Every structure is written in C-alpha cells, then in structure tokens.
C-alpha cells in the first residue's frame, strides 16, 4: 500500500513539474531565447530526484530552509545540464521549484500511509495542472494579440517566435502601430461610432424594454402567456436568417450605411432578452410598494419612474452591460450594412483592414487590442452584473 502510493506520488508530481518547466521554457522561447529541445527525459529524471529527496527529508529540516536549499540546488543543476540561458530564465525556474516544493510540504512518508491517498494526490496534481492549462489556453491568444501589436512585420517574418518587445527604442517607436492606426486608418472615428452605437442601443433598449417588461410582469391582459413564451422563441432566431430581408429592405429605404439603421436592428435583436431579464426581476419586487404608490395617486408612468426603476437598478445594470457587450462585439450586421468607411464600427473596421492583404499584422493586432480592451475592462470592473446578465441571456435563449 505504502509503496504503491509512493510510486504514484513520485510519478504524478514529477510529471507535473516537468510539464511546468517545459511550459516555462516555451514561454521563454517566445522572448527570444533559442532553445530547440525541451529535454523532457532529462527534466523528468531531475524532477524525480527532487521529489524523492524532498519526501525523504520530510520534516527533518525546517521547511523554508529545505525548500530554499532544494530549489537552489535544482536550479544550479538544471542550468548546468541544459543549454546556456540568461539569468531571468534561471530565476523563473527557481521560483517555480520554490512553489512546487512548497506544495510538497505535507507529503512525507507518514502522510503517504493514509487510505485512498494516491487517488487524492493524483487529483491534486491534475487540478493544479488544469489550472495552468486553462489559464494558458485562455490567456495565450490575448498575450499574442497584445505583444504582436508592438512588433514590426519584418521582425515577425524573420523570426516568428521572437515576440520580445525591444524597450531600447523610444516610446514613439514602440507604440508606432497605435499612432498609425489612429492617424492613417482613422480609428478614432471608429471608436466614437462604436461607442455611440453601443450606448445608443443600451438606451433605446431600456426605453422600450422597461415598460414592456413591467406590463408582462404586473398587468393582466389578453395574450399574456402567449407573449411571454414568444419572447423566448423569438430570441432563438439567429441573425443570419434576418440578414437578407433586412438587407433588401434597408437598401430600398436608404438605411444601409447609416448608424441609425444599425441602432434599430441592434435594439430589436436585444429587446426580447432584455424584456425577459427585466420582467423576472420586476416580479420579485413586492406588490405592496406599488399599491402604496397607487394610493398616493401615481399613474403607471409615475410608478415605473419612481418605484420600479429605483428598486431594480441592479437588474437594469445587468441588462445594460449585457446589451452593451452584444452591441460592441456585434459583427454580422455591421458587415452587411456598412460599406462606407465613414460609418464603420470598430469590428467592421478591423475586418476591413484584413481585406487588404498588405496590411501589416501589427496594425491589425493594435486594432484588435483597441476593440478588446474596453470590453474586458468593463467586464472586470462590473463582473458581478455582467455575469448575471450572461446567465440570463444565454440559457433562456
């Protein structure tokens, strides 16, 4: 029993450590270090040695002293056995080992003697690995997007894996792509259009959705159940089946290439979900408060303005952020309706940039950063509201 769990611990932890070191190495490659081999086997042996020493020393030494000495030894050995590498790379390795040996703190021979311990340990390392995996898979493209916007096309073509930013250049040179897309490609205007469209969509949607949601939540009328089910069904119909008729009608009415046309379409497509989310919240407001308002002689307009809206600000915030996100990120309609660069939104403008194969990719990525950054910042800042918006917006539709 003890032997089996010892072997499993050794394998799981050392494989984990090796993979982490490989990832660090790959990331270092992207900073311009020229490694050509991962040395997987050697690293695995080194890690095994480290884990064995760590477990057998157990609690015989002071923990902090132990992990410090072990990490230092490992790093020196690693640097000695592998290719030459700069100081920052070894420091990274050292920190990684420090973190890893700290994780091994409670593992000594006595601990490994417990029941079911091997499964637990495998699970622990699996989830540690999963955290690293998910973080890497998600952040990597964002990292690439950001870093590429500071490079130049020629540098990228010569060595596509060297993504390091040359800080010795002056600040104007480093941020050149951003200056260029604002000056030559007119991105300032697109940012304004996008903001105008998104904020406008939010306002109009709220203007239409709040009264409608109030009616669905509170008032009795013929066709109410029909209406509330059709809201959901309508929300299921995708933009792609609306595109051709809207395109033809908008062409004939002269609404194409106009921001107003876009506003109308965005509002209509987000209305069902906005109504759905708001009415759910309105229902949770106690009826007695409204009745008090009625007695005070308020009509429905007064009730909505003075009672419902102040009480449901969190829900309104969720809806607004959700609608803002949809409008800011929307692509299909802006592709179909806008062909005049004067009316482009950010998404459409970036798509337009790629239409020209000559456009250097750092400009494309700088544009991408410009469209991504605001929405991510808003998301991080208002996460609570946006998450509840997302939840309601996607399961029920």
């Amino acid at each position, binding site marked *: 029993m003890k032997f089996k769990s010892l072997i499993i611990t050794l394998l799981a932890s050392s494989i984990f450590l090796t993979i982490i070191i490989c990832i660090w190495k790959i990331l270092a490659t992207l900073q311009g270090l020229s490694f050509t081999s991962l040395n997987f086997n050697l690293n695995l042996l080194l890690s095994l040695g480290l884990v064995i020493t760590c477990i057998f020393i157990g609690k015989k030494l002071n923990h902090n002293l132990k992990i410090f000495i072990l990490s230092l030894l490992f790093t020196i050995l690693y640097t000695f056995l592998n290719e030459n590498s700069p100081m920052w790379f070894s420091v990274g390795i050292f920190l990684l080992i420090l973190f890893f040996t700290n994780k091994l703190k409670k593992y000594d021979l006595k601990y490994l003697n417990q029941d079911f311990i091997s499964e637990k340990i495998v699970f622990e390392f699996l989830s540690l690995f999963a955290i690293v995996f998910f973080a890497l898979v998600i952040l990597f493209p964002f990292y690439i*997007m950001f870093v590429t916007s500071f490079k130049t096309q020629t540098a990228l073509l010569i060595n596509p894996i060297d993504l390091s930013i040359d800080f010795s250049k002056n600040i104007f040179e480093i941020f050149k792509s951003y200056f260029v897309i604002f000056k030559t490609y007119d991105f300032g205007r697109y940012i304004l259009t996008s903001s105008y469209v998104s904020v406008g969509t939010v306002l109009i949607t709220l203007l239409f959705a709040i009264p409608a949601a109030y*009616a669905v939540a509170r008032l009795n009328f013929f066709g109410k159940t029909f209406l509330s089910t059709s809201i959901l069904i309508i929300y299921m119909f995708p933009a792609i089946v609306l595109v051709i008729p809207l395109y033809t009608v908008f062409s004939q009415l002269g609404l194409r290439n106009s921001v107003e046309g876009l506003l109308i379409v965005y*509002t209509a497509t987000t209305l069902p979900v906005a109504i759905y989310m708001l009415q759910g919240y309105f229902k949770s407001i106690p009826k007695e408060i409204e009745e008090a308002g009625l007695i005070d002689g308020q009509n429905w307009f007064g009730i909505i303005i003075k009672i419902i809206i102040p009480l449901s600000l969190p829900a309104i915030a969720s809806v607004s952020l959700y609608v803002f996100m949809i409008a800011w990120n929307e692509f299909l309609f802006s592709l179909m309706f806008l062909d005049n660069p004067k009316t482009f939104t950010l998404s459409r403008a970036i798509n337009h940039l790629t239409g020209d194969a000559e456009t250097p990719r750092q400009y494309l990525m700088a544009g991408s950063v410009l469209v991504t950054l605001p929405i991510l910042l808003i*998301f991080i800042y208002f996460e609570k509201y946006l998450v509840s918006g997302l939840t309601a917006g996607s399961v029920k539709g």
Partner: protein
Amino acid sequence: MSSTLSKIEKRTAYTLLLPAVCLVFAIILFPIFANVWISFKEVGLKDIRIPEPRAKKIVKNIQDSNSELKIIYKLRNSSLIQDIREVRFSDKLPKNVEPVNLDKRCEFKSQKVKCFFGDWEAGYRENFEIFVKEVNNNAINKNNVKSYNPGLNGKSNNILLTTDFTLKNFKNVFINNNFFELLMTTFYFTFFGTLGAILFGIFAAQLVNQKFYGRTFMRSILLFPYVGPVVALAYTWTLLLDPNSGTINSLLVNYGVIEKPINLLGQKYLIINILGFELKLRLALTTVIFFEIWRYFPLAFLFILARLQAIPKDLYEAADVDGAGPFRKFFYITLPQITAILSILFMIRFIWNFNKFEDIFLLTGGASGTLTLPISVYQQGFAISNIGMGSAVSIVIVLLLITFMIIYFKLIGKKANEI
C-alpha cells in the same frame, strides 16, 4: 367598477407593450416571413436597387449674347437592367426667363418647364437641351438658373413586389449544391462544438469549485474568450495558426514536433496512419470546432458552476465518511446532480451553434470543408449575389430550427422553467 379597472389595466398594458412589439415585429418577425417570399423569386443583389430617372443639369452661355442661355440636361436611367415607365420631368426657370423653341414633349407654364418623356429602357441616355431667353433682353444670372434642381419621377417594377414565383432556388439548394455534405458539415460542427464546450465547461467548473489561491481571478479569466469581440479573437487565432509565420507552427517546427508547418485552417483533410489504417481527419473543420469550443466553454462553465455550488455539502461529507475518492465523488454525486442542466445546456447550445456565422466566416470564410448552412446563406446571397438562393437556405435553417425547438420543448421545456 372592477371591469372598468381591468379595462384600464388592459389598455395600459397594450400601450406599454406596443413600441417593443412593433419593433420586434418589424425587425425580426417580418424578415422571417419575407424570407419565404424572396426564396420563391429569382432575385439578384443588383435587382434590389430601384431604377431611378436621373438628370444632371449643365448651364452654358451662347456666344455674344448674355440674355440667352443653353441648358443641357444629361438624362439617364440609373438601372442597367430595368425599364422605367412614364417618366415625368419638371424644372423651374427664374422670373422673366422663357424657353425658346421648346421640345414637343414639353410645355411651359407658370415659369415651369414640364415634360413627359414616356418610357425609358434599361440604360437609357439622352442629352436634352433647352434654350432660354430673357424676355426684356437683359442679362441672365447664370447661377440663378443653376440654383433650381430638376425633378424627375417615373414608374418601375420593384422586382420584389411582383408575383412571379419560381421553385428554382429550392431545386438548387437541394439538388445542385451538394446539400447533403453541407448538412453533414453543419451537424459535425454543431455536435462536436457543443459537446466539447460542455466537457471543458465541466472540467473548468469542477476546478473553480475547489478552493485555491487565485480562484476569483481564475473565474474572471475563464470568461474572457466569451466576452471578447469575435473579430479580434478570430484574427488573433488566424495569425497564431498561420502556416508561414504563425507562432504555433513555428514553435512546433522549432521543437521538432513536426517537420513542416501545417495549414490548420486551410487544409481540408489530414491523413493519419494508425496501425496501417488511413484515417482522414477534417483538419480545417476540427480547428474551427476547437475555436468554437474555446470561445463558448465559458458559458457552459458558468451554468455548471452555478449548479455545482447549489449541491448540498453534506452529500460530499457523507462520501468522505464512506472513504470515497475524488473521482468516485464526481461520478456518483456530482454527475447525477448536474445531468438536468447538462441536457438543457446541450439543447440550447446546439441550437445556437447551429446558427453560428461569425466564427467560421472570420476564420476560414467557409473554405476547405468548413461550409455550414449559415455561411452558405452569406455565400449565396452576397458572394454569388443571388438573394433568392440565400433566402432559400435561410428557410431551410428556419425549418430545422423549428424542429429543434419542438424537440426541445417536448423533451425538457418544462424542466427548464423549474431551474
């Protein structure tokens, strides 16, 4: 008393609902029905423009005389394919200015020249001239003459409003365009995209449901792919996967994993040899599916996490007492608790993925075996410029969608409302 109250209530309800209902009707329901109409017609992108009679006005001096002028109207039919019937023209002249030798088709009345040009065929052009003269032989102010804009109108057939119908579009959709392959690609993409997103969602939710340092941070970044704009993310991935100078291919070549770069988005099949069997993998489609999974697993994650956090803790405590390991806890406690939400998620994400346009369009544009139904709508309607065909494909999508919805409401509609 109560009946009047309920009447007022009803009226209020309808007033409150009216704007929203009208807008949704005009922009969502009307187009769905309009699709049916257009799909039975032979309409191209160029037919949409309504033909207009147009005139460009040029004013010229006549030699030696400043009391006379020549006005040239360059008349044309704006459309090269459609006729305009009964074209009428009118233009105003300044005070005391009169036309001389006016064309037979025209008449002059209360300072206005009015003409009836009859029918113009497609692409019609004419230079129409009027000579004008100041009645008292005074000089004419040229700018004054120029300042009036001629008015033109005529009747034309709006091809969208005629009643000639044809079944040609549907015949083309089902017979000529490899419909079966199109449908299969759509289903592959939808099914594996949905399944993958849910599997990764389960992993991620299981992960974040544990306690570890940096958990809230992890929860935020897990939603990044979904929150980020699809245009930026799709182009970033295209650059990453680029065979010539993409980071991923270069890394793989650098570490000797592959010999030559693989065109992950531009190669239809990848042939793999396993134990002498040749396996053909739809490479571009697989890549697109992985992008889809990457972008939409956050949603699955969000729902599964919410459900996981609602599972009573004592279930796990009891399992601890019984000595169950983490894997058993997952299969015997967690999984049965989340099956309901998983089935709902699967159905809904299936419907949504079935209609996904942007992701594939931006990554491959429907090339190298990634043509799905929504991309086909765009290709037929705007790349080949056959609006009627595009609409016919839209109709196929709507019909399939309605089928899915019926299945959904039959199977789990009621359950969905309980959750």
